[in-house]
């Protein structure tokens, strides 16, 4: 009889000691960075997308001078997760606007505008978005948010964080789901945006009237968009995928005059190549993009370079950003996408400077200056 009583006691013990601490799931080491700690520093914010439907996105802070790296600054400061899939960040007037794609929101955090609050402190949000991707500021009281699924661009007022209007980009004439708007650049009063998923267009929006006024046909699935110092638009397509009902072709790089909206040159890649992430250096005269490795060319080159500037061997480049001040390259390796990724900081001469292990699926780096 004795041993049975002991067993019963064990059960009671086990049951009572069980307790789950849901608070502990967030990072308990609260961050204490004040605004003065960062305001005069040269820093980089890295957006880590996290896994789709995991809600494990994060923001990393990297000090360019001291090489200090702090991961997960948003949740360490605010003791809450940032959300599901951080797509992009815009730094403007002492605030960072963080687009949380699959949470349908934009979080605004303090990067100096509120000196009495800590750095990275949450200060506001725009909610009720469908699948937001990128933000482009027209002026202090008007900004655009592109969207993958909304078939419209949302206009919001950054001063009040209220949504103030929509620009319809619904392409009813296509049998595919269009238009999915992505990155934006502005020439004069016109905002250009590339339409990536199952699309082949750059849309032209009049930012005074908030309507689509024109479109430019490019190759299949333009992934990214920049405007160089000569007012030429550059976009790189990924060409879709094999077996896609929308079509499949080799990737290509497009040069378009922003004023006339005429295609000036198309650079074709080989089949099996992968084009993405066209970027410019600080002077906006050198072009960078990913095609397995990282490639560089002048905006006036007539041909694609013969070999990669940085080899992609043993790496899986997912993102690319160029520091506008010193033209350092921030090349992003997402590894297997289910572990914290790496950011390689490389000088414009191709010399490695630093390697940072950041969050899951690092997507882009944005610069304080």
């Amino acid at each position, binding site marked *: 009889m004795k041993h049975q009583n002991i067993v019963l006691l064990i059960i009671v013990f086990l049951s009572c000691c069980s307790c789950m601490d849901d608070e502990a799931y967030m990072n308990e080491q609260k961050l204490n960075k004040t605004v003065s700690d960062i305001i005069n520093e040269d820093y980089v914010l890295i957006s880590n997308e996290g*896994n789709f439907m995991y809600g494990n996105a994060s923001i990393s802070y990297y000090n360019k001078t001291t090489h200090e790296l702090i991961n997960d600054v948003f949740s360490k400061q605010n003791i809450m997760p940032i959300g599901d899939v951080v797509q992009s960040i815009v730094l403007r007037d002492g605030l960072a606007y963080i687009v949380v794609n699959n949470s349908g929101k934009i979080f605004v955090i303090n990067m100096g505008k509120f000196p009495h609050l800590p750095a990275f402190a949450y200060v*506001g949000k725009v909610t009720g978005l469908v699948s937001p991707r990128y933000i482009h500021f027209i002026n202090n009281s008007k900004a655009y948010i592109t969207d993958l699924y909304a078939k419209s661009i949302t206009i919001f007022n950054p001063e009040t964080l209220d949504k103030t209007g929509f620009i319809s980009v619904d392409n009813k004439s296509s049998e595919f789901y269009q238009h999915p708007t992505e990155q934006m650049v502005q020439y004069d009063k016109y905002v250009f945006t590339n339409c990536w998923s199952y699309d082949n267009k750059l849309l032209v929006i009049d930012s005074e009237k908030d309507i689509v006024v024109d479109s430019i046909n490019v190759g299949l699935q333009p992934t990214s968009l920049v405007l160089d110092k000569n007012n030429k638009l550059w976009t790189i397509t990924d060409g879709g995928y094999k077996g896609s009902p929308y079509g499949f072709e080799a990737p290509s790089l497009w040069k378009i005059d922003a004023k006339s909206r005429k295609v000036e040159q198309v650079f074709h890649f080989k089949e099996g190549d992968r084009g993405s992430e066209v970027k410019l250096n600080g002077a906006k005269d050198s072009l960078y993009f990913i095609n397995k490795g990282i490639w560089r060319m002048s905006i006036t080159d007539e041909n694609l370079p013969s070999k990669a500037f940085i080899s992609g061997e043993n790496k899986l480049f997912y993102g690319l950003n160029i520091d506008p001040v010193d033209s350092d390259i921030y090349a992003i390796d997402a590894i297997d996408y289910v*572990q914290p990724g790496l950011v390689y900081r490389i000088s414009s001469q191709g010399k490695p400077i630093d390697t940072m292990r950041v969050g899951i699926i690092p997507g882009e780096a944005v610069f304080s200056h």
Partner: protein
Amino acid sequence: MLLLPNFIYRCVKWSLAISTFLIRLVPINYINVFIFIGMHKILKIKLIFLFTICSLFVKASIPDSILLKEVKIVEKLIVKKKRAGLKFQKIDTLVLSNLSHRSLSEVLSENTPIFIKTYGRGSMATASFRGTAPSHTKVLWNNMEINSPMLGMVDFSLIPTWFMDDVNLSYGAASVKKSAGALGGSVEMTNKADWRKGFSLHTLSSAGSYKTYDQFISLNYSNRKFSSKTKAFYSVSDNDFKFFNKDIPASVDLKTGEISHETQKQKNADYKKYGFLQELYYKLSLKDMVSFKIWNQYSDRSLPQLSTNESNDKDSDGKLILNNINNQLDRSTRISSSWKHYFNKSNLKVDFGYINTNLDYYLDVKQNRGEKKVSNRVIDSESKIDTYMAKAELTGNIKERTRYSLSGEFSANRVDTKESVKKTGYKENRNKESFVLFMQHQWTRNISQNITLRQPFVDEKADPLIYVSALEYTAGEKKQFKLGANFTRNYNRPTLNDLYFQPGGNPDLKPEDGFTYEGNIGYTVSGKNYDLDLSTSAYKSDIDNWIIWLPNDRGFWEPFNLKNVKVTGLEFKAKLKGKLFNDLQYRLSGNYAYTKSINHGDGVTLGDQSKGKQLPFIPKHSSNLLLNIEYKDWFINHNFTYYSERFTTSSNDRKKEQAGRDLYPYYMNNISFGHRFLLKKKCLAEIKFRIDNLFDEDYRSILQRPMPRQNYTLLLDLKF
């Protein structure tokens, strides 16, 4: 007329059959059974012969545990019915009846070492058996594999426990006789005829928190030759539990920076499920029985948003417009028919089966654009899956000491899946054949050995041979010690989605190739007032070409044969039942599993830190404990489940390290208690109250998916 050994064998079987029958009518204990056996040994041959024939047909319903006793009585070297040296687990009928209003996912997670990953109450639940992936657990219903050929896995939240009479687990090598590719093991569910004459009716009604209502019914009719069972259920829930959402800011004070949070109701988590199961059994002759079973089911579920989601909009009156509304519709029809013929020393079983599954999923996005509300369908996918199956198995003995089984299986899968927004999809067929040979030999009273050979063919091409070799040694006066060992090579084909999904499917994927060693020890002891069953196993698996899906730089996912996974595990199981005082009976059973499931694949890139790390979502330690106490007509059940931390990254990051997240250890207690009584002398009634999440834990078991706090269910069980 009858050979002597055969006579003894049947004589015992007859006695057992009668006693089994009586046990069902009146709860008599084992001592009575033995008295019964003793009594009937002196009965005349004539009578015995008559009952022997009857017993042939009761054979299917004799529980295994009683068959073991059979070996105890007959002191003769007869090959065991149970496959030696392999590990099986039969889920207690008490457990099945206690959880008959829930899905099989809860039965497994609360009573077996299988880890169930569930996305929330009523949501999808997938299994990890011995540290493997969901597609490495094969699920059989009446001998027919029901894993989706498209996805490879089974959603256990869609299997109503009410529909299953028997649930058995075959660990690792033990699965090979009935299915290929179960690198972890298999779960076998069967339906059995109930030959009690006349009509009987069983109903179970339940009402629970969050407007959850379930109704279950079972109608049984049997005569001498024919038996029919009709079962049906209907379950509906709003599932709108409240939770304090720490994951989104309700407001912020810009003077102090203080962020406040709010309690919110879970949205879009409602579900509705219903289904029926019809079973027909008919004895064609003294030596032939046919059966037919059809299981039809419908499930309509929404998958709730993550707790961080703030995409919901408001209309001009401030009313909420839910965004990202999705819905998953699962409809399935499964048919299984079989014919069993008894020869003198063998029997032949022929099965035919058909499965039709429809899986529809859509995702709608909605937004308020001033005057008008806009709604767009972003994903609209439909999948139709048909599986045809035929199987013949001959089982018999070669003399007394050798048993064999020879079988051939054929199955054809047809998958037709399309997504109308992106206009992707595929239509593919796959035919599989397998030939299986099983032999078991009793070398001495204590040593038995068996082998299983399975030769699969896929689309007429031969796969490598799958094989098992197992050895068992029993010791002790009453054979209370059991030692078993086995090794196996198994082989799992990629799913049709792995091969053909658009975009990403890779037709060049190689099958997953596994090799496993296993050792088991069992010990059974019975005292005056108790029975104790202890068993422990250790195993090591090496799985090559493990398939994982990874996103690529073009915005979609692709499967790769990337990993080599080595699983080392230890399982411990204990079962104690007995009497404390005259009227107090208790049962205590527990499982503990240690699972080290390590990735040994070379990394994808230079910075890869996943080598040597535990696979995501697989806990290293897991255990559960069930205590059942019955006092006269009152009873109480307490269940405790524990999982250690689960990583969500391949590099096993903890929250303190990189920006990775881990899931903290899981402890869950559920309790139920009730009372049994006779209603108007005709109806056996049971009223029961169940409390889930007894200690009102605020928890999640998947990132950003809140779980319900303490909740209640009231149940009424009536047997006519």
